[in-house]
């Protein structure tokens, strides 16, 4: 039992820190932690992100956990987290590769042909090509396998029609990974096929979604007679669900990097700054109880992440226990933001960052929080996962299981 770095970990941390210090400026550790959902996607930002990724790749600091044969460094998850922690101390361009490097690359490595691997992996690693995920649909969210975007074979090509949604970064991506329905007569999970699609293909239209927080990190992507060569199929026809599971298994909450320490520090500072009953709010007993609850749960989440990391670095495979992080962390962020706004009194309802404490970061966080509770597994789906896969409670009773997908109800019966 040891929460400190091992000598090897400390050495890696020092090396990473030293390299970063030579490249980029450190962030003032006391500055208010920016809202994680403050997406920036203008051309200059994307160009800066690509340049930074290329530099890291060329000097051996990119895709650390990927095997060397795929351009990675063959390091463990522990080193990746240490790197993330160190990089977070510096002012760097945003990371637009989380989905590609974390989820899509590993899927290609696991299921791709040698030609596909050769063609895509290195450019993905170096960041010169950006990737997005095309999974969710308007009628297939939590029930992802209910997706209906169709792919119909036509000689050596497939013709795609349908609509995807909630695709992060689709507007600046070069490639997408898409799950389609190729056999509506098969049962739900059996009729799916996975493809790599060129985002500049004719017939693809990307429309940013304006979110409740005013940002547009997500997109709708429309497919109208989009032609995809059969060479871009990933895995066998009808095997798309199995391939998709590989992608989803890699969709792990980034552990370790976001310890929530900055957020907790900002919350305590706010409670010291604003007043309640004529005194600093932090002297109020009810405020203290809430602060303590937030602190205890945040620490619990942080150390639970460390426990997962520690197990993984000893060779365990990522398990469903990881769902705790999001199941608890997402609603917690909303509660904390809500409480911080409450501390501000009537100013809680003001958004002007020049008059609201801490640049109105809590107002932004509160507007972004509902999205976090939904994206990548809703609170409810995560609880099902914990109940079924960790505690082995019975799965949901399914009414769509043994019938052809085309016979599965999609709405209330017509009167």
């Amino acid at each position, binding site marked *: *039992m040891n929460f400190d770095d091992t000598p090897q970990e400390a050495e890696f941390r020092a090396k990473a820190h030293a390299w970063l210090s030579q490249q980029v400026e450190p962030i003032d550790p006391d500055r208010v932690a920016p809202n994680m959902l403050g997406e920036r996607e203008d051309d200059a930002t994307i160009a800066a992100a690509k340049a930074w990724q290329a530099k890291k790749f060329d000097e051996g600091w990119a895709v650390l956990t990927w095997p060397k044969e795929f351009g990675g460094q063959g390091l463990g998850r522990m080193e990746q987290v240490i790197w993330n922690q160190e990089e977070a101390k510096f002012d760097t361009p945003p990371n637009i590769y989380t989905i590609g490097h974390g989820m899509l690359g590993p899927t290609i490595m696991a299921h791709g042909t040698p030609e596909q691997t050769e063609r895509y992996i290195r450019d993905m690693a170096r960041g010169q090509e950006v990737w997005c995920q095309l999974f969710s649909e308007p009628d297939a969210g939590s029930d992802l396998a209910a997706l209906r975007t169709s792919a119909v074979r036509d000689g050596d090509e497939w013709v795609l029609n349908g609509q995807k949604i909630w695709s992060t970064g689709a507007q600046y991506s070069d490639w997408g990974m898409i799950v389609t329905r190729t056999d509506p007569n098969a049962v739900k999970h059996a009729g799916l096929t996975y493809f790599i699609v060129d985002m500049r293909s004719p017939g693809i239209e990307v429309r940013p979604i304006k979110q409740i927080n005013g940002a547009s990190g997500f997109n709708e992507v429309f497919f109208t007679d989009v032609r995809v060569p059969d060479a871009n199929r990933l895995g066998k026809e009808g095997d798309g669900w199995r391939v998709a599971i590989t992608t989803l298994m890699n969709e792990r909450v980034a552990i370790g990097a976001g310890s929530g320490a900055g957020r907790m520090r900002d919350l305590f500072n706010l409670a*010291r700054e604003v007043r309640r009953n004529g005194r600093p709010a*932090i002297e109020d007993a009810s405020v203290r109880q809430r602060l303590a609850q937030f602190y205890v*749960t945040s620490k619990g989440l942080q150390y639970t992440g*460390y426990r997962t990391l520690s197990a993984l*670095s000893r060779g365990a495979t990522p398990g469903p226990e990881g769902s*705790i992080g999001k199941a608890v962390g997402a609603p917690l962020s909303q509660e904390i933001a809500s409480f911080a706004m409450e501390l501000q009194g009537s100013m809680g309802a003001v958004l002007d960052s020049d008059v609201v404490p801490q640049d109105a970061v809590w107002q932004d966080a509160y507007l972004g929080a509902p999205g976090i509770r939904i994206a990548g597994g809703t609170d409810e789906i995560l609880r*099902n996962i914990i109940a079924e896969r960790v*505690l082995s*409670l019975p799965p949901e009773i399914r009414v769509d299981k043994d019938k052809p997908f085309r016979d599965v109800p999609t709405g209330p019966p017509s009167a």
Partner: protein
Amino acid sequence: MNLEFSEDQKFVQQTAREFLAEHAGLDVCRKVLESPQVAYDAELWKGVAEMGWLGAAVPESHGGAGMTHLELALIAEEIGRSLAPIPFASSVYLATEGLLLAGSDEQQQQHLPRLAAGDLIGTFALAEGPGEVALDGLETRFSNGQLHGEKLPVLDGDVAGLALVAARGDAGPVLALVDLGGKGVTRTALRSFDPSRSQARIRFDGAPAELLGDASKGAQLIEDLLDRAAVMMGFEQLGGAQRALELTRDQAMGRYAFGRPVASFQAIKHRFADWYAAIELARSNGYYGVWALSEGNDELPLAACAFRSAASDAFELAGEEMIQIHGGVGFTWEYDCHLFYRRAKLLSAALGTPSEWREKLIKRIEARHAA
């Protein structure tokens, strides 16, 4: 970073689990709970002493097993799992720990071997009636080698032979060591919310006592002792919460309603998921706490507060959910749910309630911030 217990430590835990499965079934807890004249299970106490757990963290030179607090924490978790009806917490995490922390050579030599052997039961007396204890407002007085005042409730106070008593000394709070079998001590058993664990009222009328540790650092000593005991008690709470979850899971899997297992309803599954998360988050805080304790590093004061409040909340939640998910039978005397429900509340109250530890946490964070 390595957040796993070693193979040797896991072996200690496994041995404890097996021993307690054999010797401390819930029937053992129930027997004490249902016998008003019995304060604890003497046979189990003897067995636990023979296993060497009472002196787990006591050096071999004082009759202990010479293990660390990491092993002791895992034993505590197993004690919690079994709801063992013995004065383990009072004697081990509090009396023994206090002597290890601040006892003179002579005091250690005199008491530790007997505590480790189980021949002497120790306890810690802090509370003085309803409400929170303020160390600077203690009414029990220690002066000229004598104790005056009244302590209640004192966990295991009716059966302990030795007590560490928090009292007002001549220059601030102190810990006094007192022979509870000596003169000037009057003890009355209280009706305990969890009758498988006894509690007492103790009156001191000039009872002879001696100082434990430095008279000028009594408050710090009491805080240290509470922090350390809180971590150990937290593991006991984790064990209880986890066992309650497992038993309730089995019951919900086996019981059918509306033609399907009760455990298959989302309303029930989500309760289980939240319950599991509460235990795991508390456990993670516990790992940090016991690491800080065993390293003797200065994270302990914050870690102890965080763990203790999380573990108390998790076990209390467990007691409540256990009955709720069991349904009507959970409310019967015959089913074991109330054993957990009672134990959870008793352990929460024993070293300061969850809200007291949360308050203490903020106090300490603010003190650090000011420094």
